[in-house]
């Protein structure tokens, strides 16, 4: 049984409060200082201590390996707010036992936009990984672990050997998630699936005092891993799980540090990076005619495009895309892409089932979804005005 531990590092460029009366004022959309301050805080609580522990584990356990994905917006902020975090990342990547995963640079919903936006953003991300880490990713993950037959075909056309997806009953149809599959639409693309029960035991439930397994110790967890059937175990979660979502006083960092040792107690358990895990024969094919994700109870795109606010905001952004392309101005293009980051839409989520609403509120920096929508639309409207101005310069 190979454990595929994969951790996702992402920070969005959050918008500043951009009021309706600020339209046309030239005020910046993004509050750089605030974003960097937030980043510095998370680096202190999470990135630095957790990466240090992972680096130590790599040194102590030659068997230990894992995979990471870093968004472009994360790396941009890390460069300015905590460059030592990038050094730590380079350290672990240099061991050769840490794979980096490909994705969109802006952590965007570009897969819902007309080509070639998705290709451009994935390419942008690949270039960033090459420049920063001298790595070419072999496996692709879409924003929020989105997966569909079309996306598998895209991965194939981009020459990725595999993709990550949610091990959701909807696509498994009674089969186990703990195997290597391949896409039905693009058989050269191997699929590594997230075991959401075991992943969420750490990601969501670790610090829940009401949980009947609380407290979760590494020995118990390793035992669960060892007694799982199958040959691959996908433990996919946010990197921020370690020290941010669960703060250090919950013991999560100690858990992370102790896990490789606890796993080593079980002879038939070993570790694999995603690059290693995609090598081999698939047990079966998997088809996903409709896009699935790793979010909420529904595992669909409802968290980003579930209500009319989200859809209308995304449609407006999409519509602006054609104008932005025509304007052919790199600065405007970058701003537009930063506005495509999925987090903006996530903040506009309304309602939902108890647990999900709590999760959404936790991540949002707005008082309400209406705030999030109005602020986003103001920035987008302002950008639109700038693009239109660029397209049709005023006659002198």
């Amino acid at each position, binding site marked *: 049984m190979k454990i595929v531990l994969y951790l996702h590092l992402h920070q969005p460029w959050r918008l500043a409060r951009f*009021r*309706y*009366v*600020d*339209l046309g004022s030239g005020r910046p959309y993004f509050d750089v200082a605030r974003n960097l301050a937030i980043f510095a805080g998370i680096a202190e609580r999470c990135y630095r201590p957790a990466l240090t522990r992972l680096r130590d584990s790599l040194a102590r356990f030659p068997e230990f390996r894992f995979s990471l994905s870093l968004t472009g917006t994360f790396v941009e902020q890390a460069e300015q707010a905590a460059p030592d975090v990038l050094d730590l990342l380079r350290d672990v990547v240099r061991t050769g036992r840490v794979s980096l995963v490909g994705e969109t640079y802006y952590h965007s919903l570009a897969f819902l936009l007309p080509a070639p936006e998705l290709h451009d953003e994935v390419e942008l991300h690949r270039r960033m990984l090459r420049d920063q880490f001298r790595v070419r990713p072999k496996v692709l993950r879409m924003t929020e672990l989105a997966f569909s037959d079309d996306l598998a075909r895209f991965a194939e056309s981009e020459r990725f050997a595999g993709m990550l997806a949610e091990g959701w009953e909807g696509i498994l149809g009674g089969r186990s998630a703990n195997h290597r599959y391949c896409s039905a639409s693009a058989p050269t693309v191997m699929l590594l699936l997230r075991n959401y029960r075991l992943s969420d035991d750490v990601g969501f439930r670790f610090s829940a005092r009401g949980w009947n397994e609380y407290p979760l110790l590494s020995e118990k967890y390793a035992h669960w891993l060892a007694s799982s059937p199958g040959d691959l175990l996908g433990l996919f979660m946010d990197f921020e799980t370690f020290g941010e979502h669960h703060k250090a006083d919950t013991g999560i960092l100690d858990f992370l540090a102790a896990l490789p040792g606890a796993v080593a107690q079980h002879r038939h358990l070993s570790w694999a990076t995603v690059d290693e895990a995609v090598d081999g024969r698939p047990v079966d094919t998997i088809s996903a005619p409709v896009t699935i994700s790793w979010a909420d109870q529904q595992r669909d795109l409802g968290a980003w495009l579930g*209500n*009319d*606010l989200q859809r*209308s905001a995304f449609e407006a952004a999409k519509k602006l895309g054609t104008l932005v392309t025509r304007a052919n101005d790199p600065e405007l293009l970058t701003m537009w892409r930063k506005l495509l980051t999925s987090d903006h839409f996530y903040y506009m989520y*309304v309602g939902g089932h108890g647990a999900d609403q709590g999760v959404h509120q936790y991540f949002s920096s707005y*008082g*309400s979804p*209406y*705030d999030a*929508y*109005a602020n986003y*639309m*103001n920035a987008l*409207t302002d950008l639109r005005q700038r693009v239109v101005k660029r397209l049709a310069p005023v006659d002198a």
Partner: protein
Amino acid sequence: MTEAPSRRTKGRTRAARVRTTGGRPKPHTRRAVGRSRESSSRTSGKLVRRDRSQLEALTSTLAWRRTPEETPSTPPRVPVRKLHIVMVGWEYPPNHTGGLGVHCYELCRELGRMGHRITFLTPFHGPFTETQGVSFRWPGRRTEGEPPVPFAYQVTSGPAEPGWDTSMNSYNDWVGSLAGLKEVDVVHVHDWFGTRGGVALSRRMRRPLVMTIHSTEYDRTLGFPGAEIREHEAYGLQRADRVIAVSRHLKQQVVDRYGVPPGKVRVVYNAVRPTPRLERLRDAGVIVLYLGRLAAMKGVDTFLRAAARVAPLAPAATFVVAGEGPELPRLLTLSAHLGISDRVLFLGKVTEEERSLLLAGASVFVLPSVVEPFGIAALEAMAAGVPTIVSKTSGVAEITENTFAVDFWDIDEFASRIGELLQYPELRRLMGDASRWEALKAGWPERALETVGVYVELLDAAGSRP
């Protein structure tokens, strides 16, 4: 183009003035305290000169800080025997203006439906809106064939006028010595006007006294209370066995400013009655509405300043000010000064029917109050499906999440919220729908039950469990 609308505005004004000053003095003018106008200009002058951080500090002292849910008042779990409540009231529909009249009417209506009996005392003559279970009593006599003899209460602008205290004293004397009341369970007084009579009556009959406070003298005068009225409030608040405040913000004031022990105060919010959904008129994102009294505490000048800020960005918008009050002349001057006379319509007092139509056609409702113990108007707008902007200090902001809550001094923020709602139809639609749901989530039946809960608490304590 700008000529015609400005003439129209002017015409409206004259009409409104005629209505304000003409005819029989109306009960609601009670609140038009003479001092309030000057104190408001004093206050707003100060506000403008303060810098932002001072203003933010001011908001944080005024606004209720959302704390983990505090149950306002618990409805009784067991059936309650039918009670007889003597309500020492003030205004009652159809002649009412503020939240107090609405609150009394809706409360009595629900109590009556539950089978309780209410004797409603008021200084004014009827006829009042017929309400099941409610009998009205007022001083003075009806004479056959002649118009009712007016009660001594004739005041139009509060304690500044001669004869004011005489009429109030005679009302209170009348209340205190009222005969012919049988099997009374509770005496319940609303606001300051009848506190002395209410206290005397409850003592004489040895029944517990409940006092509902709808606003304090500090609220009505923007922090420059008239000593006399404050005294009457303090007299009632300190002697009542239980105080009901219409918001947590108001409860805090009662505790801080009148030294009432917090354990004695319960919060029972106002509500709105579900009306058959009036079909929304074509929502073109045009009408921005203020509907309420034009008093200093209502911050209508903020509404106008925000209108002036957003008007150039929303060329189709019309800003409607519906209601009357002592601030009208100042607001007219202000709108001229801001150069938006052609964009603002002053409608004066509107009828119930006009009110429903305005709400059906409005795209945005604004309640910019500096001080607003509750703010029923905002809840009514929400119930009509109108997306609503409220000031953070209003009581209604405590129980609503599907609104934009703004600092009362933040003109840019009001302007932005108006602009956003006008500009983005999806936002308007979603907020409007959610508002309606939220406003009707808890209605008057729940509020009346909570009030009965307060009565039962007292009767329990007195050992006469109903």
